């Protein structure tokens, strides 16, 4: 495939001609994406372009209108429940909101997937959980309830939970937001280390250009339902596409729309007479 020069021949996730819409609004209008094995691939794009939606499509929580999504040789939208659950045991996902179980404490949250899917003795589970919590720097917080954590801490616990079953692939939805500089550095390192040491495949969804460019091997930039650019961070930084340049450099003016689709601004203000539709 001439379109994907830098991507391995046997990608872990292979998306072709993906179309998806929410009601009238088309979110994806035919996109092709390859996620190579053992690499860190970033999906970037302005807020509201559908990055979270893409992760939900890859994990089979949503079904596409058209196109194919193949994960490790299995067509996700066509999978039966049992097969899909089997596949999900090998996928970790870090939700944008953390999504911890609020009736459990930190320890039990991280232990949850282990207890549900393995018959390991409690001693072993304890050690595994403490290891994962140590990795995100929250071993000391294991007795706190999920509701007693700050947003950034909750996200780190969710990360520990996502790696509890040692998956083949992790999808991180905005792992960097809400982290102070120190924990940000730790998370960047952790994603990197997981990737190096375990050969994990990582997908990072983010709009933090700087952090993402620092650890990603390959970046896709989405906007307006299309892939508007892809390449290594270095490629993209020197891209001559005005779309990509605008996004990577964070310029307000350019072809990438900052606004949700709307009627003409001046017209809407001028038409503001009594009785007009709001």
């Amino acid at each position, binding site marked *: 495939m001439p379109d994907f020069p830098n991507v391995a021949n046997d990608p872990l996730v292979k998306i072709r001609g993906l179309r998806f819409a929410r009601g009238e609004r088309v979110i994806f209008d035919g996109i092709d994406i390859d996620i190579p094995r053992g690499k860190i691939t970033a999906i970037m794009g302005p807020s509201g372009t559908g990055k979270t939606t893409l992760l939900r499509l890859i*994990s089979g*929580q949503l079904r596409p209108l058209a196109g194919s999504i193949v994960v490790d040789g299995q067509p996700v939208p066509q999978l039966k429940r049992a097969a899909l*659950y*089997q596949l*999900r*045991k090998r*996928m970790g*996902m870090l*939700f944008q*909101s953390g*999504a*911890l*179980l*609020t009736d459990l404490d930190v320890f039990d949250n991280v232990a*949850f*997937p282990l207890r*549900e*899917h393995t018959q390991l003795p409690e001693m072993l589970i304890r050690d595994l959980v403490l290891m994962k919590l140590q990795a995100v720097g929250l071993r000391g917080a294991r007795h706190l309830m999920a509701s007693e954590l700050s947003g950034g801490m909750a996200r780190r616990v*969710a990360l520990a*939970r996502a790696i509890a*079953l040692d998956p083949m692939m992790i999808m991180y939805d905005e792992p960097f937001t809400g982290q102070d500089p120190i924990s940000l550095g730790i998370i960047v390192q952790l994603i990197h280390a997981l990737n190096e040491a375990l050969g994990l495949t990582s997908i990072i969804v983010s709009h933090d250009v700087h952090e993402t460019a620092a650890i990603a091997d390959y970046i896709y930039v989405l906007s307006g339902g299309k892939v508007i650019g892809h390449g290594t961070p270095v490629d993209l930084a020197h891209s001559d596409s005005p779309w990509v340049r605008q996004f990577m450099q964070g310029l307000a003016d350019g072809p990438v729309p900052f606004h949700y689709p709307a009627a003409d601004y001046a017209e809407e203000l001028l038409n503001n007479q009594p009785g007009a539709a709001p």
Partner: protein
Amino acid sequence: MINRLQTLGRWGLIRFERLGRGSLFLMQVLAGLPALLLRPRLALQQVYATGVLSLVIIIVSGLFVGMVLGLQGYNTLVDFGAEESLGVLVALSLVRELGPVIAALLFAGRAGSALTAEIGLMKATEQLSAMEMMAVDPLARVIAPRLLGGFIAMPLLAAMFSAVGVFGGYFVGVGLLGVDDGSFWSQMQSKVELQEDILNGVIKSVVFGFVVTWIAVFEGYDTVPTSEGISRATTRTVVNSSLAVLGLDFVLTALMFGDF
């Protein structure tokens, strides 16, 4: 006119659609029940949450309802010189009707609304999605234990309500109004039948418990995941399950005691 018909038709269709979805949902949840046999702790926790935590309101209400029955029953019976039958009157009213029905209404308000809000909030905060992503079926892990827990708890609560109510009636009738202690109990013992009265009451409370819990977990699972959606779903749980209890009570009573 046509517009009204259309509105009515749409309303009817929406109701039927929800009923259909509720039934499909129920079947999926029931499929998750056998797995619970291996982890009874999950269901026991819910018996505690729905049952034990509803005990106070059930006991207090049962006591007062029984006391009122004792008072009203005495005033009526004494005119006929039949105040010895007070025990029968109190026990039959409670076991056949008031126990199952009032306990179910209280259960809907206390435990049903809590179930709906809890599940709805889990949905709104993506906890259910997160479980699905961890390959854990929320229907089996979250919903099934709650359904089973409510199903077990409700008949026990109804029995508790009736028992406490009988003592309430005893307290007022025998303690305050001077009905003979021995005949209060002996008449009750001879006139209350195991099959006709007690068993039918238990059947009612089992049916009510099942329906109320089903409505509560379905409304929670089907919530529009916003704060407004959760508040509406909670209201719907209380309203719909109360109506269902009262309607079903008539149907069951007609089947059990009606002579048609």
